[in-house]
């Protein structure tokens, strides 16, 4: 699977882009990614609303795909689901940003 993480927003407004092949991830996170990719769309929707009046938070556009499936999720750091947050945090910490 290929995971692509586009992050925008934040106080600085600096966009980042990371693309990673899941063969470089620990098996536990590969399973997390696969579950998210195959899950019903409704289960990956943001879990909470963005707090009214908030500003300078990060926004994410995340795609997880393999040869047959593709899931795209748009969320932000307030409403990102826990599993996805775990996955993204690991990827951001360990991967070299391409943009």
């Amino acid at each position, binding site marked *: 699977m290929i995971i692509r993480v586009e992050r925008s927003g934040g106080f600085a407004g600096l966009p980042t882009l990371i693309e990673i092949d899941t063969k470089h991830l620990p098996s536990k996170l590969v399973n997390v990614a696969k579950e998210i990719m195959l899950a019903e769309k409704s289960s990956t929707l943001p879990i909470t609303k963005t707090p009214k009046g908030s500003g*300078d938070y990060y926004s994410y556009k995340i795609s997880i795909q393999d040869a047959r499936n593709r899931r795209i999720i748009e969320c932000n750091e307030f409403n990102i689901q826990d599993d996805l947050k775990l996955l993204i945090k690991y990827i951001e910490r360990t991967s070299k940003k391409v943009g």
Partner: protein
Amino acid sequence: MHFENNCTGVYKRSQSLNHGNQICFIIPEYMNKKIVERGSKKQKEQAWKNLILTEQLRGRRLVTGLMSSMFSVSNKLNRTIFDAEHKESLPGTLVRHEGGRPTGGTDVRESYDYSGATYKFFKEIFDRNSIDTRGMRLESTVHYGEDYNNAFWNGTQMVYGDGDGKIFQRFTKCIDVVGHELTHGVTQYEAALVYEGQAGALNESFSDVFGSLVKQYALNQTVDKADWLIGAGLLSRNVKGVALRSMKHPGTAYDDPTIGKDPQPGHMKDYVNTSNDNGGVHINSGIPNRAFYLTATELGGYSWEKAGKIWYITLRDRLSERSDFQRAANLTFEVAGSLYGKGGQEQNTVQKAWDQVGIKIKTKK
């Protein structure tokens, strides 16, 4: 006759909103506000409903976030600082409260001092009592997350990361960053500009404007002495740049192999259409930022005296949730005329500033 018609018209409206409320709104606004401050619980609730309804009838913005602060009014600065201890759970551990000993490290001290400076600016210049005009406590959390390259306002408090040391230093370092975040709170309680598209870019711009003014006020700088930079000193020494944004020359704050080039436009012809960053709120804010810079520097003196006042009154009284750049331009022009006279130097300067960023004023004749 006029009284009866008003009473009847308002009563009909009040039936639909208040489910049978019998009160006719002849009570003036100032009296309702006094009741809110001093009445019984039931009287306060009714007075707030009256205020909200009259605001609606006058076509003004809905008053937001009122009920939670309904019974607490303070005229004093009140700050609390929390330490998230590098986790992402808020607010964290309380490390300093208002008037308490200056414990904690540099981040704690900076967030405490700079939120105080922001309160002082809004109070002394615009007679505004904190974010919500009612003495709302200013809450900040420092050491949020690990190497967190950001600061944000979450609708309730400010949150600051330490930076990773490679691109960013700690986000409490710059007074204008603190002023910027707190101003998101002010906007939330006033125009409540939606955080997307041009309304979102205006939201960002007002935060940059008043963040910069907080800094200028603290340093006693006139417009010619101000640097008009946002986040100067925030970037690490490894990065080629002077700040995150320039209000004077949008697009020139940084140009670095790692983080790229400052993408801000300074004119509508360079407006960036994007779906990222909630429609480019941190990008296109460069256009209204420059309009403010041009207004302030043309008028001279201290930026908060006239330009800041025009912008503040516009934010507080005139803008609405989905106002766009054109609307903001028209309204700042009108407010300038109201404050300083139609056709005067101030109004002409506002018109010229917006024209220079590609927006022609359009007003009703």
